[in-house]
């Protein structure tokens, strides 16, 4: 099984956190429904060319937050996640993307009014699609 996880070595974000975030997004977005089996730590480590230490850290954090469950001898599965938690993941993903976009604009010395104008234009274009 290959999970659609794409890691960026160029990001400031540590690798384990990237894995954690992308798995959360797949779970919140419904691509990985409750009960879906996840690859073993070793197999995911091989696929992503990452050490088992890093994968284990990501899995442990996800387990602690209730996104996945590990059953001894059976493997790791997606847990039942409450809608409110899924909602929270989506909201923070959207916030983060917008924050990054705004940061880029500020770095290029755009004014709040100009940023707003670009945002409105993108919205109009997306609605038209």
């Amino acid at each position: 099984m290959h999970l659609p996880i794409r890691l960026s070595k160029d990001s400031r974000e540590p690798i384990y956190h990237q894995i954690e975030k992308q798995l959360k997004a797949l779970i919140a977005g419904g691509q990985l429904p409750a009960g879906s089996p996840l690859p073993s730590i070793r197999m995911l480590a091989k696929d992503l060319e990452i050490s088992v230490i890093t994968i284990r850290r990501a899995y442990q954090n996800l387990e602690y937050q209730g996104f996945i469950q590990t059953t001894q001898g059976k493997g790791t599965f997606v847990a039942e996640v409450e809608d409110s938690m899924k909602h929270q993941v989506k909201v923070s993903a959207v916030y983060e993307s917008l924050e990054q976009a705004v940061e880029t604009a500020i770095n290029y010395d755009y004014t709040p009014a100009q940023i707003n104008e670009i945002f409105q234009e993108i919205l109009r274009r997306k609605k038209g699609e």
Partner: protein
Amino acid sequence: MQPFAEIKQVKKKVDEFHLGPVDLTIEPGTITALVGNNGSGKSTLLKLMMNLAAPDEGLINIFQKNVQGADENWKQQVAYQPQRQVGWDPFTGNALKDLISPLYPNWDEELFIEMISMLDVPLTKRYSKLSEGLQQKLTLALTVPRNAPLLLLDEPTTAMDIPSKKNLMDILAEWMDQGERAIIMASHQSENIMKLADYLYVLQSGKAIGHFEKEELLEGYKRYWFGSELPDTQIPGEVNRGTWQVISNQPALAEQFFREHQLPVANQAGLELEEVMTLLLTREDE
């Protein structure tokens, strides 16, 4: 959990070559790559672990047994693949399997068959008639299915084609998942197989340069590009400099320096493992 192998302050002199001191502990569930150039001491270290050579100083324990002790039962729990097989030339793959498999009570015939078919190895040709790549594949198929918890591989893939290397990585990862196991493999710095490792033990001309967890090492290096010439001052952690670009192994300090000196970073990127190894192994030359 007890470590599978402990190497403590091991030193070995072979003619003009000095290995060590080597300190290395191998925990179950881990894959460790011994990385270094030719003649860095990787094979010597594996031979010392197998008690095929005696260290001048230090101690090696495998499964809590001193490898130089009279009791050699620990060897049952180790599968070792040397770079060259002595005495295999006149035998076919089939004959070799019949000789080797009865020696190992946990021999996994199914895995042997799977490896032979995945790696496409003819079993009816004499070992001496096989290409170097096929010899390596057959050797692996006669080593991994021994199902000893500790697997020692000496440059297992140097002559193998790229798809076979990938297949082998799949096989080894699956093998690791079957129980409490560990792999130590010697790998040239440019070999893809080191990407399978969790830890890298880097050797240069017999000297241990470091024992690294892979991501910890990778996250410690960053390359920065600039829109103009850099000042002559040394950047914190600077290990390499090119036209309008610099590599630092102290990214946090380097970025602070760039801010303080108003040097706008045009772009930044992480490094590939191979690149980091090259930097580690060339820097020590100077």
